[in-house]
């Protein structure tokens, strides 16, 4: 048991993704700075634009009626697409190749020749990706805070922190799905594509559920349904069910991944 708590595979995973983490952090910091900084120049235009017809033509965008406010603009431009979809795809892609690339690249034979268990590999690959999520998450948050102060816009900073805390849980759930796929599918490209399909599928399902009341139930299958960045940012309302969903998905995916990976044959061709 003591070998698990030494987390050496996790540490190596973290080191392996050092550069990626830095690039992702810089990318999202730049993106946050750009969108937050852009708001003043768009504000009056958006005020004119946001009439009833405009709102009706974009029913799939959550809180489109709030686009002319700073919080609404941030949510729509930054958090909804770039944060919850694009970053999730990038993080998910990395997670989905975590174990698969060791099998595809045949390094798994050497890794497992050490006194490490297969369950341990699953857990440590997951743990090793946590720092990336935390670093990208909070560096972006600091930039949003800084720009907001510089622009003298009104934003509840406590709510902003809460958004980024929930984001950590959201991304951990995404990573756990990726690790599960990675434990099942040997081909890292295939695993990553399935991961992206799941994330895009969730995004589409959420959009469809917002558009037509008939398909509202579809939204329950999407992570985005449980994490409305606007209500958290504006009103500080946290969806308790969402937290349970994210934590539940993470725990279930990891347990399934551990047991599946423990039992499966590792064939190298």
């Amino acid at each position, binding site marked *: 048991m003591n070998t698990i708590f*030494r987390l050496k595979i996790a540490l190596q995973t973290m080191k392996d993704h050092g550069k990626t983490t830095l690039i992702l952090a810089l990318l999202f910091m730049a993106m946050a700075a750009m969108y937050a900084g852009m708001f003043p120049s768009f504000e009056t235009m958006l005020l004119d634009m946001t009439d009833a017809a405009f709102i009706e033509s974009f029913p799939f965008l959550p809180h489109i009626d709030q686009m002319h406010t700073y919080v609404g603009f941030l949510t729509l431009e930054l958090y909804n697409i770039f944060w919850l979809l694009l970053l999730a795809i990038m993080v998910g892609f990395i997670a989905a190749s975590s174990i698969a690339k060791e099998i595809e690249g045949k390094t798994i034979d*050497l890794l497992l020749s050490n*006194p490490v268990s297969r369950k341990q590999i699953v857990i440590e690959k997951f743990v090793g990706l946590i720092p990336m999520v935390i670093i990208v998450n909070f560096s972006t948050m600091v930039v949003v805070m800084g720009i907001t102060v510089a622009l003298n816009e009104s934003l509840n900073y406590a709510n902003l922190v809460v958004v980024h805390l929930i984001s950590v849980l959201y991304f951990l759930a995404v990573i756990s799905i990726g690790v599960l796929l990675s434990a099942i599918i040997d081909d890292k490209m295939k695993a990553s594509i399935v991961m992206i399909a799941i994330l895009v599928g969730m995004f589409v399902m959420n959009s469809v559920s917002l558009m037509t009341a008939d398909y509202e139930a579809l939204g329950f299958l999407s992570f985005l349904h449980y994490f409305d960045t606007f209500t958290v940012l504006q009103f500080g309302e946290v969806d308790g069910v969402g937290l349970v969903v994210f934590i539940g998905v993470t725990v279930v995916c990891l347990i399934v991944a551990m047991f599946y990976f423990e039992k499966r*044959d590792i064939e190298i061709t």
Partner: protein
Amino acid sequence: MLTMDVACPKCKFTISIQGNPGERIELTCPECKIHGFFKFPPESSTQQTDDVIVVKNLTKYYGKIKGIEDLTFTIKKGEIFGFLGPNGAGKTTTIRTLLGYLSPTKGDAYILGKNIADNMVDIKRKLGYIPGDLNLYGHLTGRQFLNYFESLRNTQLPLLAELLQVFDVPLDRKIKGYSRGMKQKLGIIQAFMDDPEIVIMDEPTSGLDPLLQQKFYDFLRHQKKKGRTIFFSSHVLSEVDKICDRIGIIRNGSLVALEDVDTLKQKMGKLIRVKIKEKPETFTGPKTMKRTDDWIEFVTNDDIDYWIKQLSHYTILDLEIHEFSLEDIFIHYYEGQT
């Protein structure tokens, strides 16, 4: 009488003591003067079984495709065991099933007395492995790779310095820039660096030049002398002939021979080649006799004396008597059976 090194629980000063199994003696640490008792381990726990690898009816099917079937063999401590067979015979499947990468369809195996089904992590503390299709982490340098594996082994590496001297690799270069031979050397280093009880290798000398192969064989013989066990697969017969004590020959997933190299050779008999001044047709040898050019060739088991006496009636121009090489044996097992 047992001799043991005992470390003082307080100051870690080590003293050497002697006693009988099960005996309890009183000790005083010469360093910190702490007083205590030491009990020698009872006889039973100091006895160890000689078989470090025991394989019983091990079978692996990939769906309906046979990998290996009903393999049964044991490997003794301090033995170099050669596992022979052509490509696709099941060598790699055997090794990867033994090491837990594949779960056996039937049968079981024990390594160092532990069942492979539920003690794999413990077993791997005392086992090294060189995969046949060796692939290392290309993005790491040799040094980073060895450091990573050192941290995973979490133990002393008594052989690392020696190995680095014998198998010199560019430690500060990224592994993706390594040649095949360099990678193989790094594979050897990582397998042996913590001086494990058993090392299992899947065609370990592929990619090594003859000089390095020689160094590697010397190293293996040295390990054997220390009581370490080596299990390796190969299709290079000359190397198996040079260093193995015992061989198993696998054909089409099943073991067709399991024998001491010397016994096997003895069983096969000796090959006699003779050239006589008289016409070769005038000599009647055993049924298996062959005449090629001027040479008469035949195999004899334990009646060399008889044949030499028969030959003494002729004028002998040239005479050769030699053992079968492993290659001849190998071909013998495969001939007509494929």
